[in-house]
Structure formats: structure tokens, C-alpha cells
């Protein structure tokens, strides 16, 4: 993590305390988590107390307080995907990544999450890997998608 990058993000938002959430979102996008030193820098520059930053950072699910894996796997558990066997897909992902929802493996390769409807129910069961949607999945195809992740 480079402080220059953090300061750049803060300055793009005019060092504006009311832009706290936007700034945190950008840091999250950049590093896939919110490193403590970055939060301290944000607090110092914006003059926002750490207690407030922590509250915001832990309130929204978009933020992570721990490092995330290189590949983010979201498994849809929505109704449509559920009836088409989302739980089998989740099982496969779990076997393959070695971790369950909300977890990241020790090598920081995969972070697994479950979500509720990605909005393309007709393609169910669906997973989203690094922003790319994979639909109509079988167990074997799911394993294939994960194997192709470096």
C-alpha cells in the first residue's frame, strides 16, 4: 500500500469529510480491503475520528477489514438459483477453494461470498468470479471455472 495513492484518493474528493464513504469505497476498490494505515491517513486528513471511520467501515458489507483473495467468488443463493441447485454449486466452490462464505484461504487466492440474486435469474445457478458472470453451471463446470483462476 502506498500512502501516495491514498492521498491521491483523498484529494480527488477535496479532502471533504462528507465524502468519507466514497473515499473508503475507492480504497476498497484499489486494494480489495481497507488497510489500517490507510484508515488512519483518512482520519488524519479529513479530521474524522477513528471511531466513526470504524463504524462506517464495519457497517457496510462493501468494505472488508481483512485482506481479500486475488479472486472474488460470489455464489448466488437467490430463489431462482436456489431451486436450480445453488447449494450444490456452493459445495463445489467450498471443496475447491477450501473455504466457505465470508472466508479467504491462507494463500489469499479465493475469497468466497454468498449473495442473494445477481439479477440474471434465467441463467441460474449463477456465480460471479471477479465481476464476470458464469451461468447454467454444473458442478464440473464450476470446478473448471475455479481451476482456470491463477
Amino acid at each position: 500500500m502506498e500512502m501516495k495513492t491514498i492521498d491521491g484518493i483523498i484529494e480527488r474528493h477535496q479532502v471533504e469529510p462528507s465524502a468519507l464513504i466514497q473515499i473508503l469505497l475507492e480504497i476498497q476498490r484499489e486494494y480489495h480491503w481497507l488497510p489500517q494505515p490507510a484508515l488512519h491517513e483518512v482520519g488524519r486528513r479529513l479530521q474524522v475520528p477513528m471511531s466513526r471511520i470504524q463504524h462506517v467501515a464495519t457497517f457496510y458489507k462493501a468494505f472488508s477489514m481483512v485482506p481479500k483473495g486475488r479472486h472474488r467468488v460470489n455464489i448466488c443463493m437467490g430463489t431462482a438459483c436456489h431451486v436450480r441447485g445453488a447449494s450444490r454449486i456452493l459445495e463445489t466452490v467450498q471443496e475447491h477453494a477450501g473455504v466457505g462464505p465470508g472466508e479467504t484461504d491462507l494463500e489469499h487466492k479465493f475469497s468466497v461470498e454468498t449473495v442473494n440474486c445477481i439479477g440474471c435469474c434465467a441463467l441460474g445457478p449463477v456465480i460471479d468470479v471477479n465481476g464476470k458472470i458464469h451461468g447454467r453451471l454444473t458442478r464440473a463446470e464450476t470446478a473448471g471455472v475455479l481451476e482456470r483462476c491463477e
Partner: protein
Amino acid sequence: MSTVHLTIDGKDVEAEEGTSLLAAARSAGIPIPTLCHHDKLEALGGCRLCMVEVESRGKTRLVVSCVYTVEKGLTVRTRSAKLERIRKGILELLLAHAPDSPQLAELAREYGADRNRYEPESLFCILCGLCVRYCAEVVGKHAVGFIDRGIRKEISFIPEIAAKECDACKACFPLCPTSYLQAAYVLTGSLVFPDGCSTAFQSSRGPSSP
């Protein structure tokens, strides 16, 4: 600032515009139970115990008196069968979290709340926010804050700040209606100084007065 007249429990009450129903009632000597209210702090509206009934234009509504400001000609009731039921329910829910809180026990006696109505769920903190707001608004140190949300919400000390400021202050301790605050503080201490080398956090002095 103009004053407005309203009726609380049949009594004609005069209050400055912008004051809360709670403050207006109390200034007229009408008690309303509260848990998250503190005169020096911005109202939170968190515990809902101060709920009252207001009547305007022929309709009766429930409002939270600590965050509802006075209006001309309002008719307010601070006691009714419905309100007693609501307060009893709130107390029973809170008692599931903090069964040993003296303040809750006292209110429970008054409202006939049964501390065993719900399965105990030892959260201890009832999230009144008194410690958080007092530290931020009065002491100005922001050493303790909330984290997470919903059923996972809890208070959390910022270790770097707590290590420097809290031992000399502890102004929030006597405000807490439960014993959770002190426990959280001691826990933070053991996390910051895992080998117990700190006297700051291990001191056995009880809560000091604010």
C-alpha cells in the same frame, strides 16, 4: 424563540419552540422513563422507552418523545395501557441481553416486566450509546465507538486512543446501564497489552464519578 402551549397528561404545559416532548414533560414535573437519554447529549432515540401518545387532528400516534419536538396545541399522553404494554415489551427484550442491570431491574419492577420472558442472549450491552456519545460529545476523545450493525452491532474501544486517554477519564463508566462497558474496556486492555504489563488497563479501581 417563541413559546408554544400543549397539553401533557391533561396539564397545560408551556415550552420553548424546538424543545423535545421529553424535556417539556419533565420541566412540568411529568416523568417519562428513558434509558438512552442524557441531558448533555444529543438525543439518539435508541431505546424507545420514552415513547408517548400524541393526538393531533383527531388521530392518535405513537412518537419517541426524546426526539419529537413540541407543537402548538398537541395533546400528549405519557401513560396508557398501550404504552405500558410497549414499555414492558421493550424492557423484556432488553432484559434478555442485560438481565443483571440494576437500572433495568428497577424499571422492570415498575412495569411488571418479566426478565425471563425471552431466552437470555448474553450481549450485555443494550446499545444505548451513552458511552459512545459521551466520549465524543462531552469528553471529545472518541475513544469508544460502535462497530458492525444489526444483531452484530457492538461497542469497541479504539486501542490507540484508549491506551492514552481512558485510564485518567473513565467518565463513561457510571453512565452505562449494564456492566458491559467496563468488561469491554478490560478486554481491550488485555488485547493491547497481552502480557499484562500495563498498569493503566489493569487497574482495579472501580468506576469513578464523571
